[in-house]
């Protein structure tokens, strides 16, 4: 899965880091650092992070199996 966070929108609420700690980590108090490429085993955690982000800043490709962008 590929993902990108719109860090202009992100307000460092850290919900994502709590729900998918292998993908999103806080660097200092409110800086978010994340891995833009994650394996399928992270699917559920990432889905939860996307849903929980209060500002809708996380965009993911390949979250649903059917997604076939190109």
């Amino acid at each position, binding site marked *: 899965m590929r993902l990108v966070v719109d*860090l*202009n929108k992100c307000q*460092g609420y850290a919900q994502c880091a709590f729900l998918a700690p292998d993908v999103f980590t806080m660097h200092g108090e409110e800086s978010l650092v994340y891995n833009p*490429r994650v394996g399928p085993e992270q699917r559920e955690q990432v889905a939860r992070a996307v849903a929980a982000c209060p500002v809708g800043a996380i965009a993911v490709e390949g979250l649903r199996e059917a997604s076939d*962008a190109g």
Partner: protein
Amino acid sequence: MPDEEYHEWLRREGRIVIVGASLAGLRAAEALRAGGFAGSLTLIGDEPHEPYDRPPLSKAVLLGKASPEHTELPRLRRTDATWRLGVAATGLDMTAKRVRLADGEEVPYDRLLIATGVRARPWPKEDEAQLDGVFVLRTRDDAVRLHRRLAASPRRVFVIGAGFTGSEIASACRARGLAVTVAERADGPLVGALGGVIGAVAADLHRDNGVDLRTGVTVTGLEGDATGRVRAAHLSDGSVVDTDVVVVSLGAIRNTDWLKGSGLGAGPRGIACDAGCRAFDFRGIVTDDVFVAGDVARCPHPLFGYQFLSLEHWGNAVAQAEVAAHNMISAGADRRPHLWMPAFWSSQFGVNIKSVGVPAMGEEIMITQGSLAERRFVGVYGHQGRVIAAVSFDNSRWLDFYQQQIERGAPFPVEYRTVDRRPEGRAPMPAGFPDPSLPTHGPTVTLSGYSPADRQLVFTPARH
């Protein structure tokens, strides 16, 4: 054909070509399809890779939290495009409506989007730039090389230029436990983008994190050893710093060379376009089939005195790509202006730095929340009696509020009460921007004047 009818035909079976297959190019392609474009779509990119994200290259990648090879941008919808990757566009014939490629092929278009971005400004002395151990950081390939070298535990990393990218690189190196020297011509890091008051805070941030920061100096030369590896950097104050890695972080050059002789208003400051993203030709007359988006564009903004702004900002590339795509397939009355509020983020030494508006226009700054000493604050910039920009250090939640103040042209100095206002924040002080003719480093805003047609541009018609 009347305007409406033409656009209907264009949406159905027109040919759209996008040159530059990165953030702006990809998002424009997606927006074209989302907007109902059913014709043929071709993306031309000189990098052999599919579109990837650059901001992680100086952050997550160097911190070891992401692979330099895997920052590809998620695809947000199908583009059904023909991708011509690894081949550069070398020329444009605006009359015949064709893009010439490096492999000799010509690609015809009905509408063209130029999103060729910028490239890293190389170290000016070519023989020194070629030394093994001298790097720039703009592309994925740059990141792979730099990442590999940092992993080999160099004795010292020497960063030339303390703009955003240079500072982020220094920060990542310190996080990896590497010795770092940073040389900056101005009095502090980020001074070109955020001014001297904030630059002083950034300087403390560097030093407290163990960076050997040298300000008010320039690098006069890089020295190599007999095997062609960089060995030392020489500074204008006479000092010499032994180092085995040098990262040149001196800002960017706009990728407009390939348009030389095309008749487009393209030059070293970018490609001028109107608020609808339509490019100007070299006479200052707007075209109707060539559009521009992203780092390569310069575009007038009503909130900032209609100055032409060049924004090396991720968010601008996305927003402008969407507006350009919409306007490319829409008739006159349906077109939209690109009125994006400049916004930027950076992450360094564990501090989240964000800004909105155009700080470089600010004559004065006042700290309306928090304190500089705690490195947790909001600074508001004033220009001719109104709020023109704001910057936050670890205080980003308030920026939406200040964005509204900028949009509203709220008065400066800021009289209203703010949360966590300290005595030091009651009075404005000079923002401390250097002479604007000095180059700034790092992704930021450049005010590039008022006139779409650069008088100094000399038009030499290309031979077709």
